[in-house]
């Protein structure tokens, strides 16, 4: 399937391994990525906090660019925070024709216009709802047997439920569980899996922020997870990049590897940890690499 692909900022900045691994994984799932390289940052909620109309207009511009991609079935992102920020803006744009008219009036200078009703899905949602768990399972060449994976969703992709279309029919707050299972891994549940990583307040209350990250990582260690997986690069920053500092705040050693969702999928589809950029994490995913080696060894 062809998608208008919004990679976000951080996947091309401090977590380049996310963008890179998505590019590697997409062809294995027959996803054609048409990158929206003209689009700007979603604002991550911060621009909306500053000026709601500005955030809505910048995102409407991105939506309008996505709607220009010939043959694309939908827009796809690889960042929970982008999903949340875009869904919030889209909720307002889709709710009011007069507001859309106003926003499109600003975009008119560029010849762009957003039409109501864009479908915009995070890679996680696309995996489950478009590709399907059975199809995903059938493409697995290296099942994640005995790999104990803790899901870390990130707030923006599980709340608020009504805006994100989460209900009994679409249990999107269960999808990471379902994907880990479909890839052959063992789901490890722990207290913090749907809590906040703390990233949004890292500059405002660093101790509280790192305490959040440290607690969730500690819970995952106690639950004996080999690694965490997240669909959000901002969560990855607080859980991986900041992990050395989080260890100091919660006063315990953590050493918990955190994978991006496309990396975990890539491993199960037969890609090597290095190809997936896993050597660039702050916390070495030793347990995962050892597991990969042992699986290859066993197969040989």
């Amino acid at each position, binding site marked *: 399937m062809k998608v208008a692909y919004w990679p976000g900022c951080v996947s091309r900045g401090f977590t380049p391994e996310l963008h890179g691994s998505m590019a590697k994984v997409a062809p294995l799932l027959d996803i054609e990525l048409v990158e929206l390289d003209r689009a700007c940052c979603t604002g991550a909620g911060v621009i*909306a906090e*500053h000026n709601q109309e500005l955030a809505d207009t910048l995102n409407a511009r991105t939506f309008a660019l996505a709607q220009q991609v010939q043959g694309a079935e939908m827009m796809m992102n690889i960042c929970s925070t982008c999903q949340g920020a875009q869904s919030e803006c889209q909720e*307002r744009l889709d709710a009011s024709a007069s*507001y859309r008219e106003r926003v499109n009036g600003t975009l008119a200078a560029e010849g762009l216009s957003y039409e109501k009703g864009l479908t915009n899905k995070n890679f996680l949602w696309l995996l489950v709802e478009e590709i399907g768990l059975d199809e995903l399972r059938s493409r697995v060449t290296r099942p994640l047997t005995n790999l104990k994976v803790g899901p870390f969703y990130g707030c923006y992709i599980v709340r*608020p439920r009504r805006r994100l279309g989460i209900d009994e029919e679409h249990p999107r707050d269960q999808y990471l569980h379902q994907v880990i299972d479909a890839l052959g891994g063992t789901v490890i549940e722990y207290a913090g899996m749907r809590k906040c990583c703390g990233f949004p307040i890292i500059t405002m209350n660093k101790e509280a922020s790192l305490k959040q990250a440290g607690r969730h990582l500690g819970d995952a260690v106690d639950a004996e997870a080999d690694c965490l997986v997240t669909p959000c690069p901002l969560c990855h920053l607080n859980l991986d990049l900041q992990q050395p*500092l989080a260890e100091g705040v919660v006063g315990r050693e953590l050493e918990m590897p955190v994978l991006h969702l496309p990396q975990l999928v890539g491993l199960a589809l037969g890609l090597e940890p290095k190809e997936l950029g896993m050597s660039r994490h702050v916390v070495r995913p030793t347990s995962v690499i050892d597991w990969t080696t042992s699986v290859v060894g066993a197969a040989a």
Partner: protein
Amino acid sequence: MAESHDRPPQPFTLRVRRYDPESGDAPYWDEHTIELEPHRSVLEAILQARDRFDGSIGIRCSCRQAICGSCGVRVNGEPALACHTHLDAAKRSAPDGVIEIEPMGNMPVIKDLIVDMDAVHWKKIQRVTPWLIGKQPVPEREYLVPRESMVDVTQTMACIQCGACVSDCLAMEVDPLFIGPAALAKAYRFVGDPRDDQHFERLNDLAQDPHGMFDCTHCFKCVDACPKDVNPMGQIMRLRRIATADHHIVDDNNGERHEAAFTGLIRDNGLLWEAELLPRSYGGNSWFGKFHPRAGKELLSSLPSIVKALLRGKVTPMGALKPHRIPKQDLASVRSIYDRIEGREERFELNLYIVGEDEEPTTEVPVAAGVVVDVLPDPPGPDAAPAAAADGGDEPADPTSPEGSPS
């Protein structure tokens, strides 16, 4: 609905967390099976269990119709009013079919399902001066205010003080001193009220407090927890917006600087430049921000992470020093959007609580270009007032409507 009301009583099993701090015993779980019609509430089930099996179960309740806010608990791990949660819905959301009931979080337990609201919730409400400080001189008759201003604050006035948002606030979980969602929503009730005389003082107080409005971690927990659609986090974002954009309050918690740096960096580059965002959030929104002593101190304290990131090749010195940008022409378009919107005399905010959604049905349209999109009515003519959505012409949503199941 009528169908479910006709269904006969059936057994439901409750797993109730029991704890009496005065006993010195550890908390434990009790299970009771009761029989009730599926549309009955979890509260009725608890009361039946208490009446029939164990009179010592502690639960606080009064109105039994989602108005008094007394029976806040956690049902299957999620905050809810026990009287406003149907048994069949609660059973469906229970992983093992047993409805698990616990006291709310972030507040000390007095007994079983009763928490000490005075020690946390009410103390925080008091903290925000929860009364109107009227403009002087007091008019001889009533204050005259725009209708939409009052409709706007009715959203926060719909709060029934049940504490569900406080229970699950993730910022309060790690910082118990955080003023929290209920009290900050209450603060907006007065900041949004044109009759109040202390907008700046209130905002400045809440911005400068290290546990104030900038301590909210933007997790949406309170939005989902609230049984009355108060949208506490949305009110907190509005407090921040008014404090920074209207009152130009520069706080000691980096709240304003972070917002200015983020917004400014996107204007400059179209994309986020993480390596600049952090120092500017501490040192101020300019290239020189990183040389401010506050930024230097932050840099030093972050060295353990920075060094590891450099060693692992996650961040390269060049990557950190040079922003990634969108193409020149697109950047010019983004800047022009900034100029146009920020240059308006008044900031425009579409408040769906006031205006509601259009009545036209929502139709999902594939993103693909070339697909004929034919779901919109004829667009308004060029003379259509662009700010029509702001005039509050539609009836507001019913603030007492318990939208969304709390379970």
